[in-house]
């Protein structure tokens, strides 16, 4: 990649990343806490690319200093003589083009079907009581942990609200699912809650809000139990800004 192209290429990559970081689509891939770092990094890269575009392509100096450096040309391994960048730089254009033209959707039922519906043992088995009042909105993973590892103790007698996407089961019925990220979608874990008592059926990956109450799983062993909820209502909702929790 020649010096003149590098500046434009780097600046365009910076702008694409900046746009991703500013307008929320980054939440389909990484956690909200990465946003400031993403903005800072892509701003820096954009400024770098613009500076290089101006200095190397628009107002290049007559004698290119890349060839004036004593001892540089001989020591070079040949592939980036005179400030050329290696061909591998072009590869970075692939993810940039994908982000710009065909941004992939957040993880959905395909990823959810790859994991079982059991809940891994949480770090602590002490569960704080739910907030008092009427309907309590819970994270799907929090509900799943309370439903299995706490045998529903903090849930019984309460009405809760969960939001996630629908994953139809092979033999009828469906799960409400939501993926949890630690860093990025590569380490996502999807939590599934079996929905009981809902006669409505939803398209795969449709976003649904379920209001309902805890109901015991068929299996008593929490390590093998599938969390369940008895739905009073199940309604279509729009996809939340952050599809993960």
């Amino acid at each position: 990649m020649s010096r003149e192209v590098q500046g434009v290429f780097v600046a365009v990559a910076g702008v694409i990343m900046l746009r991703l970081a500013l307008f929320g689509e980054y939440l389909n891939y990484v956690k909200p806490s990465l946003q400031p770092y993403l903005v800072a990094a892509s701003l820096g890269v954009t400024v770098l690319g613009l500076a290089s575009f101006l200095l190397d392509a628009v107002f290049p100096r007559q004698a290119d200093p890349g060839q004036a450096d004593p001892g540089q040309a001989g020591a070079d391994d040949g592939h980036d003589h005179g400030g050329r960048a290696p061909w591998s730089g072009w590869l970075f254009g692939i993810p940039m083009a994908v982000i710009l033209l065909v941004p992939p959707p957040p993880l959905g039922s395909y990823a959810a079907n790859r994991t079982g519906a059991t809940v891994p043992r949480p770090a602590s088995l002490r569960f704080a009581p739910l907030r008092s009042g009427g309907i309590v909105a819970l994270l799907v993973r929090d509900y799943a942990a309370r439903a299995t590892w706490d045998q529903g103790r903090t849930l019984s007698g309460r009405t809760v609200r969960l939001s996630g996407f629908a994953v139809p089961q092979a033999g009828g019925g469906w799960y409400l699912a939501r993926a949890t990220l630690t860093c990025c979608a590569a380490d996502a874990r999807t939590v599934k809650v079996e929905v009981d008592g809902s006669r409505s059926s939803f398209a795969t990956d449709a976003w649904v809000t379920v209001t309902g109450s805890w109901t015991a799983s068929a299996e008593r062993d929490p390590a093998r139990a599938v969390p369940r909820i008895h739905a009073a209502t199940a309604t279509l909702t729009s996809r939340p800004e952050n599809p993960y929790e």
Partner: protein
Amino acid sequence: MSEVTGRLRRPPALTFVMGAILAALVGPNAYYLLSGSSHALQTWSTIFIAVVVQAFPFLVLGVVLSGLIAAFVPDSVFARLPRHPAIAVPAAGLAGAILPGCECASVPVAGGLVARGVTVPAALAFLLSAPAINPVVLVSTAVAFPQVPNMVLARFAASLGTAVVVGWLWARFGRPGWLRIPQRRFGGTRPGTEAFRLTVQHDLLHAGGFLVVGAAMAATLNVAVPPGWITAVAGIPVVSALVLAVLAVLLAVCSEADAFVAASLAGFPMTARLIFLVVGPVVDLKLIALQSATFGRAFATRFAPMVFVVAVVAAAVTGTVLL
């Protein structure tokens, strides 16, 4: 010379714009035609983009630090560093604790250090320890394993041990031809700011391209390996440890996140999970890609297997003693 004729022959900005327009017209149609109903391909692209986006700020941090080292640190600083491996390697390993990033940042920095004359074994010890023993990673390990307080200590000891042993092995048995010494391309006679700009830009494009290769491989394995295979071996003593070691290489989870992944691997013994935590930051697919970018393919093909073996042994021993 070829620069000048090249500029006259093909106006690069125009070529780029034309290419971008063409891609914009053809790209989405071809992509949707291919993916159609294929959720596997969509999941693949989500994970591919996620790895690139996640690594991007850390890669930028790494190339900026590497640029600062190339452009602004005077030669006298590097001349004063210890050169004997007996001191230089452990010192460099401990110095890894101050780089608050993941493996994507440490490779360009290590390349920059070698380009400025830091001995190769010391730079390699830094390369291996930085992603594993920095405060961010240790704190996330403590948060992920609240019932196992020794996990942080074990991770620190096994990772630092791996870094130092590999550094010493390289000092004793490494051959100069195995490693392409990164050149300090833009230092010397140029003003500091220009050397900085050119180094950062070169390293960003170079490492960025290889990061894409690593991300694509990690996404492929993430989608291709059925999770059932992994849980099936959880109870088998030695096999479970080796499976987690291989998994750490294949999944290429960022070192700041791997503790939570290890914590969720229910059913696996603690030592097997420690092996996952020690191997992941020092050998994984995107790291191998980044290392071949900086030090050459001949280096990566020798270095990765050696580090893998040392890391597995170090973690197994530490785990047996501490966990």
